[in-house]
């Protein structure tokens, strides 16, 4: 199974969600600044990376975890992706698309814009980290839902948010 976490830039919320899913970030406490900074791809991708589906790792059940930045086209991305899965006659449960955007707060937007778009990482990164820590439990909860969804073997829709 392939699980694709998607958000605006594929740099913060989806990376955080995938890192939680892969067990790289804790689920029993808030991660420290250094832990977040050390997360692969965290606050690294740039505009040119939008649309690239990046492989993050395999979870303990052998599912492939990916992240992608799709700007503001969440619905278009999900419609296209589920449509392509149907066209290629793959089982619907093989791909799960998870929108992490609802958990993005204004600090992450401001930090993401200044760090990634303007290149002011010295200013943006601490703001993003504060934003991620603020929404952290919501993202953990989303990842838990995904894990339950997968474990229960549900199919149909294969879209979570």
């Amino acid at each position, binding site marked *: 199974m392939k699980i694709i976490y998607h958000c605006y830039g594929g740099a913060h919320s989806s990376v955080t969600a995938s890192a939680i899913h892969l067990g790289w970030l804790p689920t029993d406490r808030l991660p420290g600044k250094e832990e977040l900074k050390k997360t692969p791809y965290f606050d690294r991708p740039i505009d040119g990376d939008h*649309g*690239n589906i990046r492989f993050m790792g395999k979870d303990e059940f052998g599912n492939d975890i990916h992240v*992608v930045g799709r*700007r503001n086209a969440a*619905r*278009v991305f999900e419609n*296209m992706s589920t449509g392509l899965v149907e066209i290629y006659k793959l089982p619907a449960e093989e791909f799960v698309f998870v929108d992490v955007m609802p958990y993005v707060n204004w600090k992450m937007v401001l930090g993401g814009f200044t760090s990634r778009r303007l290149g002011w990482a010295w200013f943006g990164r601490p703001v993003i980290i504060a934003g991620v820590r603020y929404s952290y439990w919501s993202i953990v909860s989303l990842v838990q839902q995904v894990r339950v969804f997968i474990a229960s073997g549900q199919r149909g829709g294969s879209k979570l948010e």
Partner: protein
Amino acid sequence: MKIFYLCRTGHHTSLLAAALYAGVIDENETRPWSRLSGFDSINITDVGTPYYVGLDEENREVYTIGVWNENLIMSKAANELISLMGVPRGRWKIVDTTSITSRWTCLGQIMKTWHFDFWAKLFCQVGARKEMKILSSDINRPDYNYVLH
């Protein structure tokens, strides 16, 4: 082999290009919308869902996909997603037609979102005529392609 044509909605420029390529409409067609089921029939929430147009002369399936203004990102994502599905390289083709979308078509699409259906239809038809001129002059070129991703 499957061919995916992209445009803003998947039911305007890309549909004309795909239909022309698949032989559903003729290049001299003056009112292509009258022979094309699906032309201008969009539901905003469905943009992105692939739309089947037909088979080309080599029995390759031809589809359209709407991507709004995110043609570059969505073509990249589509390419990577199809690769992730295990489809061998070269077994699909993505043709981006957004660069030839007429301003009239864009205006029609805006009118449609505002529910000015009469004007939306009219502008999309004017746009389709202009796009058909470009498409029918290009279709016979051996290197016919707009932006191939």
